[in-house]
């Protein structure tokens, strides 16, 4: 979306809202419906924050020619500041890991020492002035005009230089620090000399290493870890998160180069990944992509991303992929619409301890781990599936939909946005399970609050996923429908609500759920303050809102606001979100 435009209209909350829905200005069709979703950005400061946060990047994506240009630039800079050749500047920069400031500092602190360490001689020596010389490698005698030397004047024949250079290049990036072959000499061999004697193929290799070094040995840059991606990311350390999105669209953590993992930190990710590989043998069965239908026992393959599974006819049993419980049990009665995150609750309800053996297993940490891992992995594969769906949507379905519903494709961006949001939410949700695994059992209040937030997130996302996946089907297969605009409103609204909720969730978890057990009433520190945007239905359907607030009563550390559903800390008497009294 074009944030520049948004900023112009920033004082007009309405138009901002429009932008949130679909990136379209065309909400004119049904103003009544649009009003339904107005509460999403009930405070326009929030969306301002959001937009400026997005447009502020603390990193730059570099393609090969960008890298090349920057490298050349730095070399020229050093060459002109220190009044040395470009070749010498390159040697210096390579030695100090391409840090212009470090080269500067070291050079002006002690030039002589730097020259010695790096192998740059102040007074280059020519070859000895005699007619014939013995090559120090092949021990043959040659006329001196067929000999070469680095700045030190140690003579070697061209053939031996070629062998020396070629061996070094084929040995790896160490060739960038090549020195004179004489064992007692440390004179650097510059790029010009190497290129003048290396074969075409070796020169290419050398240039490759040279370019790669600028990324790999540079503290500020890293390659994108996505397979086959050639972009590098230049990162300004300090402030902000480490999450970056590469030009190839892969999002990763610049710090640990794992896939983007907000809201959990890098340490947790590496612990979790290690844990996973340690447990992977035990986990193999979990990854199996099919489970028996709990009713007819036929194996069911989960082929849609959402957790709501319907068995093939004639059985048609609807169940939850995670707990294999009947989908009908997943309503309010069991404490949560679409929610299936409540491991503890499930255990207490007896789902997991039918037998004594099961009870024993419950004590086993593996089962606890399994609970989190399975949900982590399921969200991971749901995310993969959503990515594939998104691609299919863009390549096939949008065109088809445009045909069927008589809408220009430009009016269908809300669908792409919905899918992008699903992909992002699956990623966040996935990591909340690693977060949950490491959240100490003894922090009871936090755990309860966490599970509540996660449950809300999960149900919000399930709603969005359902809508984008299943409800869309009717419009893809049927003819033009007058309901299509309503569908647009609903999906765009869900997308926006869900985005908001997840962004707040991420912040709350990153803050270590600091509002819990603190003086929730007094702090408005961004944390959990607007998490309540989780339910778009609460306005339209009072009954569900009511159910939600009654559910929250068994979560003793919190109360759920009756108006906006926000989970407030027990100590608060006024809702932090909407300022309504309890």
């Amino acid at each position: 979306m074009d944030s520049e435009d948004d900023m112009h209209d920033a004082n007009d909350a309405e138009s901002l809202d429009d932008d949130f829905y679909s990136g379209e200005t065309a909400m004119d069709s049904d103003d009544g419906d649009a009003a339904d979703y107005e509460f999403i950005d009930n405070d326009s400061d929030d969306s301002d924050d959001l937009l400026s946060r997005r447009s502020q990047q603390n990193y730059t994506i570099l393609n090969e020619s960008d890298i090349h240009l920057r490298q050349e630039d730095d070399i020229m800079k050093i060459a002109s500041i220190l009044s040395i050749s470009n070749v010498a500047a390159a040697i210096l920069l390579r030695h100090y890991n391409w840090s212009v400031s470090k080269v500067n500092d070291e050079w002006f602190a002690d030039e002589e020492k730097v020259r010695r360490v790096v192998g740059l001689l102040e007074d280059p020596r020519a070859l000895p002035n005699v007619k014939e010389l013995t090559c120090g490698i092949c021990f043959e005698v040659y006329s001196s005009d067929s000999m070469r030397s680095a700045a030190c004047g140690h003579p070697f024949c061209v053939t031996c230089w070629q062998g020396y250079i070629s061996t070094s290049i084929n040995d790896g990036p160490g060739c960038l620090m090549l020195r004179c072959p004489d064992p007692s000499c440390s004179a650097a061999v510059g790029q010009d000399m190497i290129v003048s004697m290396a074969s075409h193929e070796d020169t290419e290799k050398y240039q490759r290493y040279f370019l790669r070094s600028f990324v790999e040995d540079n503290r500020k840059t890293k390659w994108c870890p996505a397979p086959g991606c050639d972009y590098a990311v230049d990162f300004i350390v300090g402030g902000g998160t480490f999450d970056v999105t590469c030009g190839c669209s892969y999002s990763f953590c610049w710090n640990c180069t794992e896939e983007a993992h907000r809201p959990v930190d890098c340490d947790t990710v590496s612990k979790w990944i290690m844990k996973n590989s340690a447990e992977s043998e035990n986990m193999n069965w979990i990854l199996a992509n099919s489970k028996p239908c709990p009713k007819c026992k036929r194996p069911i393959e989960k082929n849609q991303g959402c957790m709501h599974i319907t068995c093939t006819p004639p059985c048609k049993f609807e169940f939850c992929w995670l707990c294999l419980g009947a989908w009908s049990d997943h309503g309010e009665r069991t404490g949560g619409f679409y929610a299936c995150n409540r491991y503890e609750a499930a255990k207490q309800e007896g789902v997991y301890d039918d037998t004594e053996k099961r009870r024993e297993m419950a004590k086993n940490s593996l089962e606890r781990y399994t609970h989190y891992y399975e949900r982590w992995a399921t969200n991971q594969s749901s995310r993969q599936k959503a990515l594939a769906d998104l691609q299919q949507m863009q390549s096939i379905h949008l065109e088809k939909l445009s045909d069927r519903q008589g809408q220009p494709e430009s009016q269908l961006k809300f669908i792409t946005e919905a899918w992008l949001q699903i992909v992002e939410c699956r990623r966040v949700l996935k990591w909340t399970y690693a977060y949950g695994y490491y959240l100490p059992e003894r922090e009871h209040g936090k755990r309860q609050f966490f599970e509540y937030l996660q449950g809300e997130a999960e149900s919000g996302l399930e709603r969005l996923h359902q809508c984008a996946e299943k409800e869309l089907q009717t419009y893809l297969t049927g003819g033009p429908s007058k309901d299509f605009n309503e569908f647009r409103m609903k999906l765009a609204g869900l997308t926006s609500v869900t985005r908001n909720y997840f962004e707040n969730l991420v912040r709350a978890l990153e803050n270590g759920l600091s509002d819990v057990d603190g003086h929730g009433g007094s702090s408005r520190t961004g944390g959990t303050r607007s998490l309540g945007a989780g339910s778009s239905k609460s306005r339209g359907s009072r009954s569900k809102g009511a159910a939600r607030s009654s559910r929250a009563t068994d979560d003793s550390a919190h109360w759920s606001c009756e108006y906006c559903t926000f989970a407030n800390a027990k100590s608060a008497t006024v809702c932090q979100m909407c300022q309504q009294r309890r």
Partner: protein
Amino acid sequence: MVDFSRVQKELQECNRDINVSGISVNPKSDNLTNLIGTIPGPIGTPYEGGTFKIDINLPDGYPFEPPKMKFATKVWHPNISSQSGAICLDILKDQWSPALTLKTALLSIQALLSAPEPDDPQDAVVAQQYLKDYQTFASTARYWTESFAKISSLGVEEKVQKLVEMGFPEGLVRSTLEVVGGDENMALEKLCSA
């Protein structure tokens, strides 16, 4: 492809001052890629009086790639494997330079015998002993030198006789023994492979 013309030059050069250095390099077989180096144990060390054989193998990239060297004679030393004879020495790895030679490499190995570097061990057991109980280390090293690195007490004539009895022609036995520096087992190996 190994630069054989250089290897030839190296052999001539090395064997020219054998009386001064005590270091020699000889081809193990007809092709010049497998060689045998000999170094005397440095005086004033537990290796004194021993003669140590080094197996030398020249890789295709020689001299741009380092020669592969390992002890053929068993030796008790922190930087040399007591099992395999593998040597931990920087110039045989990343510090190799094509301007070095087999002789300079052997000289470095000889220097290593004089000055072990137990902090960068090849044989952890030996290195531990060297650091914790130098006396035991020194006597073990001396014992190994006595047992494995001394030209056997058998005189040359007795060795010749033994090998001739095994069915090899006397002339060949004598020249072979000479090439391998009087080592009976190596001579036998060479005679069998010829």
